[in-house]
Structure formats: structure tokens, C-alpha cells
């Protein structure tokens, strides 16, 4: 029975207007963002620029970050970007004093020297890390400063790295390229780039399909008829959910083909074997958990409220996730707990390797969360079948909570 239900749901989805609109949107998204992607060639000597990279010179990172901190401390106002939007933070006396202490400890200066630095013009500020300051202690102090400022400041883990960007040398650019060709076997890097662009749309769009599919029963006046069928609640909900996932993942797989073909053709010229399954791995590992969450949120809130509330909730989640990614996070390596992990380059294999366990935890967490939300949806659906939870857009509608069964 499950197979039949699943197939029916797939057919219903394939016949719906919204599904084909989503397919068109995904094609548009792919063609505008990745349609003209050329596979990168080996850098040549004498290029004007080889790109930038985060300095791995810890002393440099510490110096630049502390200089920034003293500048803001001097002004008495701190710039933060909690969700990517500018915010100026002014601290109270106690918090300001703590920032002063952090500065003294990190830079190894006395109260008098700190006051001297404070009175200097911006250009003359010269402050560095204390001789005995370890990088771990520096990180701890800067994390505390960021906490005091409410997050998103220049002292947060990823922004401190942004303070220390530097131009790449030819040798470093060649090394990056070799990682792409040898470790990533070309297709790995491009599969990450593909995932980076597609995850933006897939963090939000699945909710529309899920909401439409769940509302359709009521609009077609089939809700009660389905409620009294023999199929258990879990079977109806899980088959619907799986059909949504499968129907959404199919166009994503198809869209990855042009880029994979480009990689294969390019690889023939430089005699390397691409990883044919790279896109499959990244789509399932990187994109699927995001699609799972977005669809599950859509199903739960629609079953619970019979309204389009899920669009608003997922919209807010998308908005906060996309804008809080920050300038450094989109370059990959710092995946955190964002619903839409970013890696906006085919390079930075080292960053991917370093952040892999974080990324894996992130993806496992969201996949598990989606399963939990799905289980809640099954519960709500089961209760509705018994005549409970008849909210229908009204906040207090279910106060009597009497079963019709």
C-alpha cells in the first residue's frame, strides 16, 4: 500500500503547476548562477592577481584584530553585523570596562599605555599581541568580546580571519589548483560550488511545494474522505514527504549534469579521472538535509494550522540564515550550524577538509531535525483524523478539544 500511495503522490506532484514552476525556477537559478561556468585552468606566472586568501600567520591575525578592537574601544561604539545588516553597539560602563581588560590582557599593556593608545589618531595606533599570549587564549578573549557585543562583530571566529586577508602568491595559487585537480578530482570542487548556489533556493522553495500538497486535500474537499481510509497516518504523511523529496531532488540531479560533463571533457585534456559520483554525493550529503527541513516545516505547520504560516516561518529562517552567513563563511570551511552551508568557490579544499566534521555534524543534525518534525506531523495528522487540532487559522479554535470519533 505504501508503494501505491507514494506513486500516487509523485503523480499528483508531477501534475501540479507549482512543481513545474519550481523546476523552472531551479533551471533559472542554475543558468543565471552557473550557466557560464568555465573550468578553471592552471594559473600562469605574471597574472595581475592570483586571488586572496586568509593569512595563516597567527601573529598577523592577532595584530590586525587587536588594532581594530582598540579603534572601536577608542570610539566607544562597535560595528556588528548580527545577520548581515549593519548594527552599531554602544556598551554600558561595566561592559566597556571588560573590553578594556580584554585589551590589556591580549595586548599586554598597562592602563597608562592603553590610555595613550586611546588618545592617538587612528593611523598612529600600533598595538600587537602580548609576548606570552597564545593563539588559544587570544581566541578565548575575542570570543568573549564578541559575546559582549552580541555576536557578528569583527572579533567573532570568522570575522577575525576576514581582518587578515592577503594576496596569494603564484606558488600558493598553483598549490590550490593542484588540490582541486588531485584531491578533489575536479568534479568535487565544482560539486561544492554547485551545492553552494543551489542551497540558497533549496533552503526556501521546497516549503511552497509542501504547503501546496498539504493544503490540496482541503481545497479539493477530500480531507475527511482521506481521514476515514484504512491507511495509517504515518503512511500517508511519509509517502507524501518522500514523494516531495524525490520529486525535488530529480531536477537537481539533472541540473548537475551539464557541469559534470564540462568537468569530464576538461579532464580528458589534462589526463585526470574525475569523480563521476561527486555530484551525487554532494547533492545527497549537502543539499538533501536542507530540502528535508524546508519540506518538513511546510508539512507540519500546514497540517497544524491549515494556513500558509509555514511560508512565513521558513521565509524568516531563510532570511536569517542567508544574511548571517557573513563574508568569510561563504568562502567555505566555516560551516557552523547554518541551514544553508556555503562554499562559494571551487577551491579552498583545505578549508573543506578542516571544516568537514563541522559540516557533517551540521548535516546530520538537520536531517535528524527533519525526521523529528516529520514524526510530529504524523502525530498532528493522526490527531486531526480523530477530530482534534481543528485549528483552521484560528488561534483558540481547539479549546474544547473533544474528539469527534
Amino acid at each position, binding site marked *: 500500500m505504501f508503494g501505491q500511495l507514494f506513486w500516487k503522490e509523485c503523480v499528483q506532484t508531477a501534475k501540479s*503547476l*507549482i512543481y513545474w*514552476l519550481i523546476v523552472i*525556477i531551479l533551471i*533559472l*537559478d542554475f543558468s*543565471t*548562477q552557473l550557466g557560464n561556468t568555465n573550468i578553471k585552468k592552471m594559473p600562469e606566472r605574471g597574472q595581475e592577481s592570483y586571488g586572496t586568501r586568509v593569512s595563516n600567520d597567527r601573529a598577523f591575525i592577532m595584530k590586525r584584530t587587536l588594532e581594530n578592537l582598540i579603534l572601536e574601544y577608542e570610539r566607544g561604539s562597535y560595528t556588528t553585523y*548580527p*545577520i548581515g*545588516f*549593519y*548594527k*552599531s553597539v554602544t556598551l554600558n560602563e561595566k561592559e566597556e570596562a571588560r573590553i578594556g581588560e580584554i585589551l590589556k590582557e591580549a595586548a599586554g599593556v598597562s592602563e597608562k599605555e592603553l590610555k595613550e593608545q586611546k588618545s592617538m589618531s587612528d593611523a598612529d595606533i600600533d598595538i600587537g599581541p602580548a609576548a606570552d599570549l597564545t593563539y588559544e587564549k587570544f581566541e578565548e578573549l575575542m570570543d568573549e568580546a564578541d559575546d559582549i557585543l552580541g555576536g557578528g562583530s569583527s572579533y567573532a571566529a570568522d570575522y577575525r580571519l576576514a581582518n587578515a586577508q592577503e594576496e596569494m602568491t603564484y606558488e600558493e595559487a598553483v598549490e590550490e589548483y593542484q588540490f582541486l585537480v588531485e584531491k578533489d578530482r575536479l568534479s568535487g570542487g565544482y560539486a561544492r560550488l554547485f551545492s553552494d*548556489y543551489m542551497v*540558497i*533556493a533549496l533552503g*526556501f*522553495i521546497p516549503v*511552497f511545494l509542501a*504547503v*501546496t500538497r498539504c*493544503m490540496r486535500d482541503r*481545497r479539493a474537499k477530500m480531507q475527511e474522505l482521506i481521514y476515514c481510509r484504512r491507511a495509517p497516518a504515518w503512511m500517508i504523511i511519509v509517502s507524501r514527504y518522500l514523494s516531495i523529496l524525490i520529486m525535488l531532488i530529480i531536477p537537481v540531479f539533472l541540473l548537475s549534469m551539464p557541469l559534470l560533463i564540462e568537468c569530464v571533457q576538461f579532464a580528458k585534456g589534462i589526463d585526470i579521472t574525475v569523480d563521476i559520483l561527486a555530484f551525487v554525493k554532494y547533492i545527497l550529503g549537502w543539499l538533501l538535509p536542507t530540502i528535508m527541513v524546508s519540506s518538513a516545516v511546510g508539512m507540519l505547520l500546514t497540517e497544524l494550522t491549515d494556513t*500558509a504560516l509555514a*511560508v*512565513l516561518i521558513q*521565509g*524568516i529562517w531563510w*532570511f*536569517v540564515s*542567508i544574511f548571517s552567513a557573513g563574508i568569510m563563511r561563504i568562502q567555505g570551511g566555516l560551516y557552523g550550524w547554518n541551514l544553508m552551508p556555503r562554499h562559494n568557490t571551487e577551491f579552498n579544499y583545505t578549508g573543506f577538509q578542516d571544516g568537514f566534521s563541522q559540516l557533517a555534524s551540521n548535516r546530520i543534525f538537520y536531517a535528524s531535525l527533519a525526521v523529528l518534525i516529520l514524526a510530529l506531523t504524523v502525530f498532528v495528522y493522526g490527531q486531526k483524523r480523530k477530530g482534534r487540532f481543528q485549528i483552521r*487559522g484560528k488561534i483558540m479554535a481547539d479549546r474544547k478539544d473533544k474528539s469527534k470519533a
Partner: protein
Amino acid sequence: MERLWQIEKINLKHNILLHVLVSLALLGLSPFLMGVENLGAQDTAKVLEMYVALIGIILIPPVFLPEQSQEIRELVSSRYTGSHIVYLVRLFGNIAVLALVLGGYVFMLSHNLCEFPEIRYYLGTLAEILFLGGMGLFFYGLSDNLIIGYMMPAVYFILAVGSGRKHLGVWYPFSMTAGSYTEKVWLSAGALLLIAAGIMLRCRRSGSGRKY
């Protein structure tokens, strides 16, 4: 006139009250998410264009919501007052609410010492609000599906965030942040067309204009 006011009163009380509350909640949430004090012109434009303008998607597409059900639509179209009059009253009512809410927000920004050309930013944001909402209304009218009405402007917003000016040209919604207002004129014209087309499509579907 009395009849029109009655339609609007019912609209405010029963149809869009929740949408207005959600919009106010979103705007009320903004000081916790972003700075709304002492902003320069560019940062103020960013707040207005990338955040505040989203209330257009919440408040304009629901103009057709009460007639989501075919039976109610048929009942409304059988009344002496044509559906198009009902839709227009609701639409202007919702736009008036939007204009007021936006005005309040712009006043708050100005009061919080943000430095920006108030009138220009107000009109520019209103143009974007109407374009986003108009797009929702058009697709809702075209497809008879509220979710599509929400999805299309949301996708337009995502496209603007993702690919920026390159692909959208004069339809780029965040132009004030870059100091340009030309796009806002295009957005206003586009909004008018989309709203008019949306209402026409909906009226054709519900057989408006026929009076029994």
C-alpha cells in the same frame, strides 16, 4: 461610499488583521536583528529595501484570499457590487495600511538619527513594496493559488539577493543602496501593471461585472 467603507471595515476586521499583526511583528523584530539608529544613507536603504519592503508580500496578495473557495466566489459575484469593486476597495485599504506602517517606520528611523532623504526613501521603498505585492497579486490571480502568489515575489527577492543587478537590470529592487532611483520608477510602473493585470485575471475567473 457607505457601502465601500463597509467592505473595507470587514476587510480590516476579518481578512487582513492577522497579516497586519505579522507585518508589525516583523518590523518590531528589526531592532533586535539589525541597527536602526545612527545609520548612514546606505545602511538605511539596505534596511528598508531588504527587510521592510517584504511586508508587501504579506499584505497585498491576500486581497483575493476571502474568495479562495469557489462557492464564496460565486456568491460574491452574484451580488450587486461587482467583485472588481470589492477587490479594489480591499487593495486600496491594504495599500493605505502599508503606506501608514512604512511611514511610521521611516519616521522611527529619522527619529533615531539615521541620515537619509526621508521622502525619497519612503517613495522608493513604497515602490518596491507595491512591486513585490503586485507580483504576488498577479500570480495569485493567474494561478488561483495563494502559495504561488507568495512564491513568485519570494523567488524574485532570492534572485535579487543572489545575482544582484547583473540579471535584473532596471528591475533590481535594491538600487537605493547603490544611490540610484531610476529602478524605482520602473518598479512603480511594473507594480501598476501587475496589480491591474492581477485584478483583471481574478475578475475574469470570478465572472465579475455581471450583476443579477
